[in-house]
Structure formats: structure tokens, C-alpha cells
């Protein structure tokens, strides 16, 4: 019998599976928050969620809608400040245990992200919010999950603005620039899961979903991508979906209408 789920649901589960027990999870809001909560309830009970605003291990009785939502201040291990939160990631002792979840308007073949603008920087066609903590996180931590809608205009050869560093131009250029190894290490979209080659630093297709194919994914990608390593992802299990739907977002505030 076939299990049905929405694109948002499979994306959340795929991201949740990236989180290991013991990880310190840097979370934004929306689907990234949901993935962090799902991981804690499904596969990584001893993972810790924290926010750039300074809240560590918040109870999250209600889903926060912003990283400054008062809901993250309740029953935390500690409430501190921006400088403390970013120091936790820049500090190798704690930072190496952090996995971050980011979003972006554009991503390039080397996992660099643009959250600043489309078009000319000085008078853009579309201006976005900007870095926020994105550039800091991508600079500091060894593992980042990027959530993207898989579209040609978002998967581009060259970013209009490089907000958050990934592998830069690949082949060790990140480390050559003075950054520690890290940046976006996995991209989770509505069509599949992408990773980056250990040597070239270039994006490759790692997993298709039930119902998606390498060709379909290439069609939605604005640059050439190695698909030779692609296999099918294990679909979300009954229990994964049950916990996600019933324990993480019962009101479907973030998951939206059921499929």
C-alpha cells in the first residue's frame, strides 16, 4: 500500500533525517523549525534546538513564527544575546556540533547562497531581507541544510549576490579564502536531495523522491549537475509522518493543507 504525503512533508522528513543525536541545531522558522522539531521527536531525541537570538533548548510549546518570537524564550536552558548565540557557532568546541538549516532565493553549483537581491545590488529588481545570520552560520558551521523550491531561476550558475559562503568556486577555494570547512552540505528540495563532491565541492544529485527522476530534476536546475550517484530516497515512513502530523504541527500551521 502506498503512503501519501505532501512535498512539504517529505522535505521536512528528509531534513530531519540529516540531524543526528547530539547535534546542536541552528534553526530558523517555518519548515526549518518543523524539521528540527521532527528530528527531536523522531530520530534525534538528544539534539538541541537553538536560535541566533540567543535562546538555547527552548521548550516550544507553540510553534514560533520568528526567531524573536517570545515562544522561544519560555523554559529555555538560557536566554542570552545575539553575540552569545553566534559565538556558540564560531567557537570550534561547540560550533563543530552545530547543524544549521537555511533558506535562500538563489543557490549556485557550489552551495553559495543569495538572500540579498535579484538584479543589480545598487538598484535591484527585487530586494530581499539580506544576510541576517545566514552569512555567519554558513561561515562557521560544518554542516548546513539548505531548503529550496527546485526551480531553474533559483538553481543558477552565478548568484546575483553571494550572501552566504558555501564552497565558493570549489576545489578548496573555501579554505583558501580563510574559512573553515563547512557551509551548505546538503540541499533538500521538493524534488530531491543534493550533496557536494568532497573533492570538487560541486553539487551532485544524491536522492530522487518516489515520483521524481534525475531528468526531471535537471530540467529544474539552471546548471549542469552530476546525477550518476542518484538513488531513490526511502520514502517517509508511517511513523515518521504520524509524529510529524500529530506531535509537531497538529494544526498544520506550517505544513499547510494535507495532500
Amino acid at each position: 500500500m502506498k503512503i501519501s504525503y505532501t512535498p512539504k512533508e517529505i522535505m521536512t522528513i528528509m531534513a530531519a533525517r540529516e540531524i543526528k543525536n547530539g547535534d546542536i541545531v541552528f534553526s530558523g522558522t517555518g519548515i526549518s523549525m518543523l524539521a528540527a522539531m521532527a528530528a527531536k521527536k523522531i530520530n534525534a531525541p538528544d539534539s538541541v534546538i537553538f536560535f541566533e537570538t540567543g535562546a538555547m533548548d527552548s521548550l516550544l510549546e507553540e510553534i514560533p513564527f520568528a526567531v524573536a518570537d517570545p515562544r522561544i524564550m519560555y523554559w529555555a536552558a538560557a536566554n542570552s544575546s545575539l553575540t552569545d548565540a553566534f559565538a556558540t557557532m564560531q567557537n570550534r568546541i561547540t560550533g563543530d556540533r552545530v547543524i544549521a538549516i537555511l533558506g535562500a532565493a538563489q543557490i549556485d553549483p557550489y552551495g553559495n547562497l543569495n538572500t540579498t537581491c535579484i538584479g543589480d545590488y545598487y538598484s535591484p529588481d527585487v530586494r530581499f531581507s539580506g544576510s541576517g545570520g545566514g552569512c555567519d552560520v554558513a561561515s562557521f558551521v560544518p554542516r548546513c541544510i539548505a531548503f529550496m523550491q527546485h526551480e531553474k531561476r533559483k538553481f543558477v550558475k552565478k548568484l546575483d549576490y553571494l550572501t552566504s559562503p558555501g564552497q565558493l568556486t570549489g576545489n578548496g577555494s573555501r579554505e583558501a579564502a580563510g574559512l573553515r570547512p563547512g557551509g551548505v552540505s546538503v540541499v533538500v528540495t521538493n524534488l530531491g536531495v543534493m550533496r557536494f563532491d568532497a573533492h570538487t565541492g560541486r553539487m551532485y544529485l544524491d536522492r530522487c523522491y518516489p515520483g521524481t527522476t534525475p531528468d526531471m530534476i535537471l530540467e529544474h536546475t539552471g546548471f549542469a549537475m552530476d546525477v550518476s550517484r542518484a538513488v531513490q530516497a526511502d520514502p517517509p515512513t508511517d511513523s515518521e509522518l504520524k509524529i510529524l502530523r500529530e506531535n509537531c504541527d497538529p494544526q498544520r500551521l506550517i505544513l499547510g493543507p494535507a495532500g
Partner: protein
Amino acid sequence: MNNDTDKTMPLAEAVTRFVKTGAHISIGGFTLNRNPMAAVYEIIRQKITDLHLYAHSNGTGLDELVGAGCISKLEIAYGGNGKAAPTCIRFARAIQNNEIQFEDYSNYMMSLRFMAGAMGVPFLPTLSGLGSDMLTTWGFSESMRRSDPKIVDRKLAVVDNPFGNWGGAKKVVAVPAINPDVTIIHVQQADPMGTCRIQGLTFADVEQAKASRHVIVTCEQLVEKGVLRENPDMNQIPFIHVSAVCHVPFGGYPTAVYGHYDYDAQYLKQFAAAARDENAFTAYQDRFIFGVDNHGQFLKQVGKDRLEAVAADPRTGYSVNMKRD
């Protein structure tokens, strides 16, 4: 004198005295939390313009000030405001229409810049931003920077680690200190001399305050000196940093003030909707800002029902099960 003397005054007076045309300012809070909104509306009402705003992620206050045309120069990390406006509407328009000069940094960079100002050092080092366009693309041109002594000559600088590879870094990004003319913060409790107690996350308020020549504090509760002295560990800002104290209940509304009230998702949505249309936006401003004389009248305009809807639950510090979408 920023000493142990009574600094209480009406908000309008504090804004008139310390927020001058062309001033370099910063405001406390983060996106939809603890922005000094009463002061923001007062600045707009007094039509103070040509302000240079230093912001990390002060979403709600930022978009009101930009929308009202008070800001001519902006140094910022993040122009978003949660679910209501993933990108602040007036902020995006002002940039797309070349109405303001702007400079992009990251949240940590901006926080460190305030921290450097508070510490009294010219810069602080970080490993953030190496290889990014933040280093190479300057919103403020070199000539504009050199012509204005209040703006640092370089946006950022990459500096070699003088200790070789100590700390696992051969080079660092130096971020220049910020010392605003005035910073305005909204806190849960303050005494008449300006000692402050913030409840919940402090964001970068403490660094911003200590970096500034003048600090205007608006507070939910104005308490006797003794109330805060009972537990000095919980007071993040001692009076020596503060120039003015203004007692403004609901002074953070429509943003959240932990333990007192939640953000008003409905108000923020209504603002975002109005911000998309010039006529609607003018109508919004006329009704809520120019149509009232002070924050008390603004709150009347908002209505009791809204204030009751956002009232904080004493256990959690926010409004439990409040309608937020």
C-alpha cells in the same frame, strides 16, 4: 550628566532633545520583539529626517521609519519581519527605488560592531563573511565614506592573524565599531536614574546602549530604585549609560514585550498590507501616527480588544493560543 539623578521626562521631550535631524541612531529589539515603537512613532510624528540608522534585524521599527521617510542612510543585516513580511515592504521599495543609501552586513557583524563601540575598541575580529560579496561590494562608496567623518573609511577589512595560525585562522574579518549618537530601547523595568532590567532575550540592546553617546529608555514599568537594587544580577544596563527615562506602558506594541504582551500579528499584517499601496499607507499613517498626539492616543486608536488579545499569559510570557495567521 549620566549619573544617579532622576532622568524621567515625557517621550516627546526625550526625542526632541536627543534625536536631531541627521543623527546616527539605533533602536533595540529584534524583528517583532521589543522594538521601541512608541519612540519610533514619536520620531515619525516629529518628522525628524535624514537619520542614519544602524540595524541588525529591527524589522517593525525599521519599516515604519523607512516608510515615513525618516531614514536617509541605512546599515543593516536583515530587513524582514517574520510571517507578516519575510522582506519588509517599505525597506525593499526604498532600495528598489533608490530612495535611501544602504550598506549590508550580517547579524553577527552588526552585533560585533555595537560590541566594539561598547568596548571602546576600533574594531573586532570575526571569521564571518570571508569569500562573500559583503566584503567586496560596498553600498557606501569610498569617496562618500571619506567625505563623511562620521562614517568609517572602509566597510570591512581582512587582517592577517598576527599569531600565525593560532585559533585555526590565518586571517580574520575586522568589523569597525559603531558609536551611535543615540540608541533607543524599550525595556520591561527601569528606575528613574536609568538602570534597566530586560526580561527574556536581550538581543543586542545592551551592546547598542553601551556604544551610544545618549540612550533613551522607554519602559513598561517605572520602578523605585530599590526594586532593581534588590537583585543587581538581573540589571543589564546601569544608569551611567542612560540619558532619558520615559514611562510608556505598551511602548513596544505592536511588537512583543516578554512577560507583558505578545506581538500583534493582526496589526503587523494590516501594516504589511497597507505598506504595499501608497494611498493605503498614507491612510494608515494618518490614522495611527499623525492622527494621534501620543502613544496613549495611539493605543486608544488600536482599541482595547487588540491589547487584550495580546496580553501575556503569566506562565509562558506570551499570549497562549493567540490567533497568529
